[in-house]
């Protein structure tokens, strides 16, 4: 009565087992069978299981099976293999679904959507399909996800002018944002700065001034150039490796304005100190764009005090001898 009320589905191999003759007495003595609703449609339990690839219905041919074939499979166990998994504690399971035929499984529709139907541990002979993602596809998917996250991050930013829209960054015009292409081509040149500090995405922090003094740790790039550093009197950011930069700060102690120039030739200026206030340039990378900010600080502050204010804590390289111990 359970499995033969409709035409058998010969196109689905796992349903063929259900047309075996069933001894009503055996069905009645199966544990939990008395709770089985007699009017339950026979094929309904299995259908959603098949439709869900994450929890495919067990079949006799799927996976490694070390169990002995059941001599008298009970209809209850054959219709609800996933339900019996609730009783597994989540360890190593050998034998897949057929080993469960002797367990006193309550007969109920196969709960394909129940997360508890999946054992938590290693399952040999289970029915989990192999991942369709090969390594190259996984890498591509990771790249897409990274780009999506970066785009999402940039999409959350409020609107800001570009470098072509701003002549000077000051107390009124505090910020501008470069495009992804502007943020990535050539070198960002800061003219007129007297000291700077940088922080990489790996939290390597260092500083330098235009007199050649350095602090913290440099960040070298694969092109044998520093990520941020002085070249003569100009401070430079190597934009080919902008993805390694987290932020940088540029300080101007001179009486001349500080200027920023990018590959296209576009530039922006920052005014020198005035009225006891100096403007420092803060360059932040947000996703795939660079943001340039002017931040006012008291003119009396030393460089170290400014670094401290903006939380640039110099990292120190361990001496080579430390690795030889």
């Amino acid at each position, binding site marked *: 009565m359970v499995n033969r009320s409709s035409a058998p589905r010969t196109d689905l191999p796992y349903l063929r087992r259900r047309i075996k003759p069933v001894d009503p007495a055996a069905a009645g003595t199966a544990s939990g069978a008395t709770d089985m609703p007699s009017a339950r449609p026979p094929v309904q339990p299995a259908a959603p299981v098949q439709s869900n690839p994450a929890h495919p219905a067990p079949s006799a041919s799927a996976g490694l099976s070390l169990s002995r074939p059941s001599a008298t499979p009970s209809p209850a166990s054959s219709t609800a293999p996933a339900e019996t998994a609730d009783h597994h504690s989540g360890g190593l399971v050998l034998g897949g679904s057929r080993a469960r035929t002797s367990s006193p499984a309550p007969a109920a529709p196969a709960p394909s959507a129940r997360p508890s139907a999946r054992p938590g541990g290693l399952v040999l002979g289970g029915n989990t399909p192999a991942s369709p993602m090969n390594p190259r596809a996984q890498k*591509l998917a990771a*790249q897409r996800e990274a780009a999506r996250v970066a785009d999402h991050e940039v999409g959350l930013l409020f609107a800001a002018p570009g470098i072509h829209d701003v002549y000077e960054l000051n107390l009124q015009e505090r910020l501008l944002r470069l495009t992804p*292409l502007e943020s*990535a081509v050539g*070198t960002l040149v800061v003219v007129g700065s007297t000291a700077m500090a940088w922080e990489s995405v790996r939290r390597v922090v260092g500083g330098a001034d235009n007199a050649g003094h350095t602090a913290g740790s440099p960040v070298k790039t694969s092109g044998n*150039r520093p990520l941020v550093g002085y070249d003569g009197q100009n401070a430079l950011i190597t934009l080919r490796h902008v993805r390694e930069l987290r932020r940088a700060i540029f300080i101007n102690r001179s009486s001349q304005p500080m200027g920023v120039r990018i590959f296209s030739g576009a530039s922006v200026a920052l005014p020198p100190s005035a009225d006891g206030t100096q403007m420092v340039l803060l360059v932040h990378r947000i996703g795939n764009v660079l943001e340039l900010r002017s931040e006012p600080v008291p003119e009396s502050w030393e460089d170290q005090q400014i670094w401290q204010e903006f939380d640039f804590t110099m990292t120190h390289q361990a001496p080579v001898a430390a690795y030889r111990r």
Partner: protein
Amino acid sequence: MASLIAGANAALTMENPGLDHVVVGLGWDAIPSHGPAAELVPFAVMCDAGGQALSNDHLVFFNQLVSADAAVTFAGDADQEQIDVELGRVPEDVAKIVFFVYVDPDVRGRGSFASVRDSHIRVATAENRELVRFDIPATTLDSATAVIFGELYRHRGDWKFRALGQGYSTGLAGVAKDYGIAL
């Protein structure tokens, strides 16, 4: 696998029915240097029928990993740069996708392709089965600071690949001017 010469083209989708996803690999060997080295940057630009970039959202490189329509994805790594193209997702108004490599214009000395040898571009399936390959002769590129390696283009409803190997002495700025890229 077919090996092309400069100017030659190869039918991709016509000769490979069902092909809807290709991997364009760009590779080169640079002469090692202990000093500042020329840094090569692979780049893809999606162009309209007039040969101009649709917008700056239709550029794909290391700082813009996916095009606006998600048809072209940068999948570069340390030893070989790859750009994936899902042909079926490329918008109809994209007539061709141009692949070039420029030397990063660093103010401390940009370098040129003189330090590059054995550069190539190859088109493979998603399973990495090589369809066509173009080995770029290095002798003509010593003074070049950007090189158009090749292009995928539509032809009567199919996709074809053309090998180019065209050098620019004006670098990225020259390529940007020709293809309408806003720097």
